[in-house]
Structure formats: C-alpha cells, structure tokens
C-alpha cells in the first residue's frame, strides 16, 4: 500500500513538473545577451562613414543622458543577422550616447520566444513584431509617431494608431521555375488559371519530374497555397467573409469556402510524392536537383534558390485566379519594427527608439536590408535596391496586379482571425488533401472550432478586444 502511495505520488510530481511550465511565468529560462558590437567583423560600414556620421551627430544629441536599448528580431537567417548587426553598429557609432544591443531572437520559434521574454520581464525596447494585434491589445507596444508612419506607402492601423513600421512588403507568392527546363521543353508561362493546370498536366505526363514541389510538413507553407485558393474563391466574392462569419451571416460551409478546398485538391494532384512530409527548407533542393519543375513560394525563396542552384536560370510567374484576375499578396502587412510601451514611457528611450527606427529606414540602411532579405521596400523613398531580375519582375507584378492585400490571417480589425484558427484550418486542409476527411466534414469541424473561438474573440462584438 505504501509503495502504491509513493508510486502515485511520484507520478503526480512528475506530471506536476511538466505542468509547471504552463501556469507560471517565474520558472522560464532566459537567453543570454549578445551585443551588436560583438559582431563588428560582419559590419558593412566603413570606418570613414562611421566617423563622418558620428561627427555630424555629436553636436545634436537626441537624448539627455546615455541610453541603452535592447533589440530582438527573428534571427534565424544568417543574412538577416549580418545586416541587422551592420545597421546597429552604424547606429551606435552615429549616436555615441545611445547603445542598441541585439539580443538573440530564436528565429525558429520567434513568437514563443518573445512571449517568454515578456513573461520573465525582459521584453525588449525595440522588436520585430509579428503578432501585432495581440501585443497591441495587451498594451505591450506603443503607437509610432507621425514622423515614422509618414515614411511608408501604407501602414496598418489599430483604432487609428500605427504600431509597426513595416520592414518589408507582404511576401508575394508566385511560381518559381527553371527557365532552361521550360525553354528546352517548349513550355511557356501560363497567362490563365486553366493554362497553369494544363502546364502542370504536361509536365506530369512528361514524367521526368514532379510539376510542383510542396513543403507540406510546415503548415505555414501550406498557408501560401491556402491563401491563393481562398483569395480566388472567397475573397473574390466577399472581401469581408471573416467579418460576416463573426456576425453569423456566413460560415465555413459556404460554397465559396468549399470551392477553396476543391481548388487545392485539383492543384495538389501535381505535387511531388511525399509532399506531406517535405519541409519548406527542402523545396529548393528539389528544384536544384531537377526533381520538380515549379515551386510556389514567396520572395524570400530567391536567395534560397540562388544558394541551392547558383547556375539556375530562375523564372517567375504569378498564378492568375480562375476568373482571370490577378490577386497577389502585397502591400504593407501587420508586422514590422515596434517599440515597447515601457520604452515609450521613458523620454530618452522613446527618442532613441524612434531615432533607431528612422535610421533603419534611411535609404542606405534599408537598401542593404532589402537586398539581403529579398524584401519588397515599403518606404515612400525608393531605396533603389539592386535586385535579381526575377525580383524586379515580382515587384512589377505587384504593381500591375488587379488586387493586392495581406494574407488572410494577416488582416486587422473586423477581419482579424482568432489566433488558433489559422493553424486549425491548415491542418484540416491537409486532412482533406490526404483524403482522411471529406470537405463537408472539414467545414463542419471548422464551424465548430469557429464557434468556440468566437466565445473568446470576436472583434465585431468586442469580445476579447477590451
């Protein structure tokens, strides 16, 4: 009996240990700091430039005492780290009274990491913000001044205030392909949706490679495809579908939503074998090894393709909607550089943080960022980036598109999604695409989940907003 009791007690303690991470903020570990000056070797600025700018700034300090700022961004990409370090180094040299310190950002799980930093009282002064709506509602980030917001072509507002300085235009998705392969086989870029399907069928019939490579293991990659079909079928009919779902006048059994799943079922028959277990990080390899003819992804893929296949002659085209219109992801999104409320409450930190954000978007710095990250510039002043021809083509397509907008899960106001609904939708989509669930059953599950989500978040009625 005693043994039984001890054994049960041990089990309880072990489970309690596991649970402990969920409820309290006091036990979570933190990352150690890493100053930007540690990586001066990577800085692109020359000593001359630094000296000149430092001299210019020395006479016009914007803070009344030495001020330190922390900066966190999703540093998973080496190029991103390098360019941010270079810009921060230049800023620190230009403003001797201000020290911006970069802290590691755990790019792989950035959202969770930022949440953890907040939990342990180490929320940064400036950060790359992605879950903007959540942090705005939590009062964690401060509105940006007119000086900053006026730098951009478009911004996203929350109740009349702008909280993020968009670092890049929304990641425009399209088809990347190997031009040489197309030329060799007489394939041309499709100009309609039907021509796109015909092209896929031709490549499939040829049999030497899969028409498409899809990184279905990463559900956010499936999000690219989902948004394309959702945009074709749902947004084309009702731009406020989500708002209407909150109001209860529409639900996910709507014919347009079912058509989204149907469109994706049609497209996915051209994906490579094993797409459901292929990570996004591997899709460039398929292209480089002539295993797939096309991939559907964002502008970030240009650099990855170049790295995987330096000699590849990369082509790009957008997939038109079935109704003939060109709908692309583009414009300023909801994410970007933000300033914490705590920093904004300190006049010196606020001035320094605002100055840093303005400095980041100065043409010389922003050009470097955009070129490194294959980012579409968002500023009114064109930073004159030197881009790959394919990138120029993408930017032109965004300008020429019939409609541009953020991803379906990147919208704000009454069309903002509940935080858990995006992932649930993508996972349900995968079930449909794998044939383990039919479309009617999928929409029923989505409706159930939506009803539950609405109980805690509904921007139309104000639930969860206050």
């Amino acid at each position, binding site marked *: 009996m005693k043994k039984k009791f001890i054994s049960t007690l041990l089990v309880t303690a072990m489970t309690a240990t596991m649970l402990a991470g969920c409820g309290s903020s006091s*036990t979570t570990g933190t990352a150690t700091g890493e100053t930007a000056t540690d990586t001066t070797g990577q800085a692109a600025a020359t000593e001359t430039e630094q000296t000149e700018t430092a001299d210019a700034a020395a006479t016009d300090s914007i803070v009344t005492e030495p001020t330190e700022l922390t900066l966190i961004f999703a540093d998973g990409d080496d190029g991103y780290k390098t360019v941010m370090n270079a810009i921060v180094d230049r800023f620190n040299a230009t403003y001797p009274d201000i020290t911006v310190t970069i802290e590691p950002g755990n790019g792989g799980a950035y959202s969770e990491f930022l949440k953890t930093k907040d939990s342990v009282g180490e929320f940064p002064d400036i950060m790359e913000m992605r879950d903007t709506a959540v942090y705005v509602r939590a009062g964690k980030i401060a509105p940006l001044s007119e000086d900053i917001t006026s730098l951009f072509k478009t911004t996203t507002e929350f109740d009349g205030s702008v909280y993020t300085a968009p670092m890049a235009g929304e990641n425009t998705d399209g088809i990347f392909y190997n031009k040489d392969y197309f030329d060799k086989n007489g394939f041309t870029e499709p100009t309609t949706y039907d021509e796109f399907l015909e092209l896929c069928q031709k490549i499939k019939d040829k049999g030497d490679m899969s028409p498409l490579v899809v990184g279905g293991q990463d559900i956010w990659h499936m999000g690219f495809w989902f948004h394309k079909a959702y945009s074709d079928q749902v947004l084309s009919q009702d731009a406020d579908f989500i708002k209407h779902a909150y109001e209860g006048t529409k639900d996910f059994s709507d014919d347009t939503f079912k058509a989204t799943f149907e469109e994706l079922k049609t497209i996915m028959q051209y994906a490579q074998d094993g797409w459901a277990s292929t990570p996004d990080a591997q899709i460039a390899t398929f292209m480089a090894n002539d295993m797939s003819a096309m991939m559907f992804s964002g502008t970030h893929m240009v650099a990855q393709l170049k790295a995987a296949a330096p000699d590849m002659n990369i082509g790009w085209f957008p997939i038109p909607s079935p109704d003939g219109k060109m709908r692309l992801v583009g414009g300023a999104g909801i994410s970007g550089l933000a300033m914490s409320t705590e920093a904004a409450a300190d006049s010196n930190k606020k001035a320094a943080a605002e100055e840093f954000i303005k400095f980041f978007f100065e043409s010389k710095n922003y050009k470097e960022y955009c070129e490194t990250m294959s980012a579409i510039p968002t500023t009114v002043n064109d930073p004159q980036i030197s881009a790959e021809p394919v990138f120029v083509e993408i930017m032109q397509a965004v300008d020429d598109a019939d409609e541009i907008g953020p991803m379906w899960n990147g919208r704000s106001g009454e069309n903002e999604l509940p935080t858990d609904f995006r992932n649930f939708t993508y996972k349900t989509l995968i079930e449909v695409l794998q044939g383990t669930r039919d479309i009617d059953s999928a929409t029923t599950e989505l409706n159930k989940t939506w009803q539950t989500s609405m109980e805690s978040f509904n921007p139309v009625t104000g639930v969860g907003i206050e």
Partner: protein
Amino acid sequence: MNLTKQKKFDKVAFAFIAPAFVFFTMFIIVPTLASVYYSFTSWDGISPNVKFIGLANYKEIFTSARFGNALKNTVILTVFISIVENAMALSLALIVDNVRWGKNIFRSAFYIPVLISGIVSGFIWKIMYNYNFGTINSVLQSAGLDGLKQDWLGNTKLTLIMVGVVLVWKGAGYYMVIYLASLQSVSVDLIEAAQIDGASPWQRFRAITIPLISGAFTINFTLSLINGLKVFDQINVMTDGGPGFTTETLVYLLYKVGFNEGRQGFGTAVGIMLLFIIIILNTLQQKFLRSKEVQM
C-alpha cells in the same frame, strides 16, 4: 526533557528539508496551483487581463474533436511503446545476460541511444525517414524493393507508429538495464533446481524468471506509461503534430494551443486533464502489476 529533544529534532530536520521544500514549493507547487487557476480563464499568455470563464475550457475539452483525437493518439502511442519497448528491452536484456563474450560491448551498444537527446534522435530519424532523400527508402530502392518505399512521416496510417519506433529505439536500452539488473538477481539455485527437475528453457523462463523479475516489469511499465503520455521532443522535431492532426498528442496539443495559438488558459486545462489521466492510468496499472509481483 523528551519534549525538548523532540522539538530540537524537528528544527534540525526542518533545516535540512527547508531548501528543497522552498524550491519545490516555488517551482513546482505554486506553478501547478497557478495552472489550476489559469485553466479556468481565457488567458492568452500575454495580456495582463486574465478573464475568469469558469468551466468553459473543460466543456470544450469534452466536446472538442481535437482533444478526443489527441487522447486517441496518446493512448495508441502509449500502448505501442509500453508493449514494444518492454518486449524489446527484455529481449536485449536476455541477450546481454546470456552472451558468452562481449557482454559489455552489447550492453553499451544497446544503451547508447538512451544517451542521445530526444531532439537529436528526432532529427536523425527524420532524415532517415525522408521520402525522397532518406536512408530507409534509399536502401529499399537499392535493394530493388521500390514497392516497399513509403512516405514514413507523411502517410497518415504510418506516422504515429513511426514516431513510436523512434521512442522504442531511444528508450529500450534504459529499460534493458533495469531488466538486466533484475535478471542477474534471480537465484541460479532455483534455475538449476528446475533444470534438474527437467524443466525446459521456456518453462524455466515462464515459471521462475518472469515471476522473479516482476518488480522490474512494474517499474518499466510505469515509466513507459509516463513517457508515452508525455512524449514531446520527437513529435516536435519530426512531425509538428502532423500530417494534419495525425500525431498530435495531449502534451503536444497543450503546447500548440498554449504557446503557439495564444490559448494559455485552454492549454493549461488540457494539462490538468492530462494530470488526472496519468494518475488514473498509473493507479490502475500499479494495481494490476503489483498483484502479479512475487516477493522473495
């Protein structure tokens, strides 16, 4: 006099346990109690406003297909690894116990996977399972067995079991050591006496060895039950709960909704349910296994 001694003894004893007691209270008891509280809220994990919503999270748990699916996956995975892992561990222990040479080499070889972290083992097997570039399919192709190639982590009928295989590979060595220690404590006299009486090797194993190592069964099944119920690392690395919801277990659901989808309150409620499930299952298992134990 006795009373004074007793009082002094209490102080000393308390002084010894105080540091552990304080840390255990701060880092285990308080957060656990806080978890119970948060399970009745709609807290998103960030906002300072924590709204009390009563039993709504628990109501959702009992009506949500996602929780039911996670529970089903957890049970399948736990049953699979409890049985296969113990069968494998006992087999390895018998091999190591009976080999005439290289006993230490075998023991070390079988134990090495235990030393590899869950995350690393997940990455290793993820690469091996890869449909297009993985070792397993490459070997099958080289052997002319293309028909046996599978999308090991993409086929919804296989994925959960493939994760289970990794857990067995990683955990069997640990349980082997426990079985081995128990096997080596079985009296040789009893085995020899049975041998003289004409008992076959299988009869000796079934009638003497198994009852005498039943304590090891209790320990190992308890541990594999707990490990099965709280598996996280390999799922995080290999499948992220997918494809779809195929490998989403209770712990992974807890993590995804709590830390990834901004529903800390609901995630914590899932954790509390998991606590009760573990207590109930463990109590039942203990009751069954203890009844089978033989005391020497």
